[in-house]
């Protein structure tokens, strides 16, 4: 059920809502383009922007816009793929977000579309390096575990039959192909669908896309 403390107009834009404490909610938007509209709704309902947190998850950024009204905290979460790298600015709606967005732009290299004053605020003007808090575009998981998930999505198994293994199996009279390392297209498709449904593609590339 959608929490009564949050304006119900946000309901259609949200893909997930959960509570992390008394009067503390996280609302994930189904599309990052909704951020300006969502901010406007909250702002007009009496919420003020407290801060914006950015998490670099390897393949994507997680931006959390924390809005506060009395003792209610509503954090609006958007997922920004690194390839995209730009998000609508909320400064035209809420001027107080001006420096928050510029700080994120400096530190993570995220562009805020239609920001009225896209200038540096934290980094010195002569800074030439990469944004200091931006990580390389790699899976968030250690490579071994990322490999497991990618292997499941690409072949529905963690191992595959090498040419040598196939020859040995043949010499022994074993079935040349065996479940579960049969690399069946239907099974791989089923596993990939599950992985996408569970948003595993936010952690690792699932291949074939």
């Amino acid at each position, binding site marked *: 059920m959608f929490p009564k403390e949050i304006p119900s107009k946000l309901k259609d834009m949200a893909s997930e809502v959960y509570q992390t404490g008394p009067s503390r909610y996280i609302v994930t938007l189904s599309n990052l383009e909704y951020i300006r509209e969502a901010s406007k709704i909250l702002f007009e309902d009496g919420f003020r922007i407290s801060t914006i947190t950015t998490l670099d998850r390897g393949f994507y950024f997680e931006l959390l816009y924390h809005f506060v009204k009395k003792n209610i905290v509503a954090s609006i979460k958007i997922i920004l793929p690194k390839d995209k790298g730009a998000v609508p600015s909320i400064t035209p709606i809420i001027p107080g977000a001006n420096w928050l967005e510029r700080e994120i732009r400096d530190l993570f290299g995220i562009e805020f579309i239609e920001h009225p004053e896209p200038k540096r605020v934290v980094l010195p003007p002569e800074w030439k390096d990469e944004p200091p808090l931006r990580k390389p575009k790699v899976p968030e998981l250690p490579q071994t575990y990322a490999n*497991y*998930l990618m292997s499941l999505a690409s072949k529905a198994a963690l191992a595959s039959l090498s040419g040598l293994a196939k020859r040995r199996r043949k010499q022994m009279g*074993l079935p040349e192909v065996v479940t579960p390392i049969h690399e069946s297209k239907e099974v791989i498709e*089923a596993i990939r669908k599950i992985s996408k449904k569970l948003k595993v593609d936010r952690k690792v590339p699932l291949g074939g896309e």
Partner: protein
Amino acid sequence: MPPKYILFPGCFIPAMLPHVEYCIRYVLKTLNVEFQEVPELSCCPPKITSIGDFKEWLTISARNLAIADKYGLNILTPCNGCFESFFEAKHFLEHRVDLSRDTIDILKKLGLTHEIKISVKHFIEVLYEDVGLDKIAEKVIKPLNGLKVAVHYGCHLFVTEPGGDVWKKPKMMDEILRTLGVEIVRDGLERICCGFILSTINDEKAVLERAEVRIKSVKSLDVNCLVTPCPQCHIRLEYSQIKLRSLKNVRYDLPVLHLAELVAIAFGLDPLKMRFDRLHRSPVKPVFEKLLREGGG
């Protein structure tokens, strides 16, 4: 007559230990255990993938269980990793609805049930509980008398219901070995991890602080070989000996055999004729020669 099963050999046995798969099929055939393979199944996947994504692990494992349930056949797996994965996934579906909600939704959308009625049985359980030691003894044509072994059960063989007897399946394995005429020698380190999981983070540490501890200890015993029912342990304990040669310039030359190989040999299989010694990475030929020479004694 034991019921029919779905044979789920896992990934490691077919890809890396074809001789073990051959022995498993040989043993099941000799004991008239009926089984079929189901092509819709995917990797179990091992519980370690849950570090990457818990829901992904649970959902893929639950999908396999649900498909097996559709066939109404219990799963027979000779892999400790697959056994653990299926066993725990079934437990989560039954007892942790809070963690299984997304999985149940996906199963429903796939037209599959989340109320799993079938069981997951380890190769050892099928041999001990469903076939029975008497039937095994009947089929032994080459008793392995005189063979002294150390056992390495593998951590996941100790997986059981909360409050259950963790030694139930390891004891079954001991009984099966004794039925074949094998003498088990203990060193007290039977429960140590082979290092497989640790190797996913630090291979060298896994070799030096897990596998070598066990290999060294077994080497000090008066045994002919080390026997394991787990493919991961089998691979790690053989691979670690090769790695130790380059890491520390030390040779252990400890033969490592899979339980199914010993059962198959006792049932009359000739491992040298099948050239199994070439598929091992530890010196097993002297053990095979001893068994063929002295077996039946």
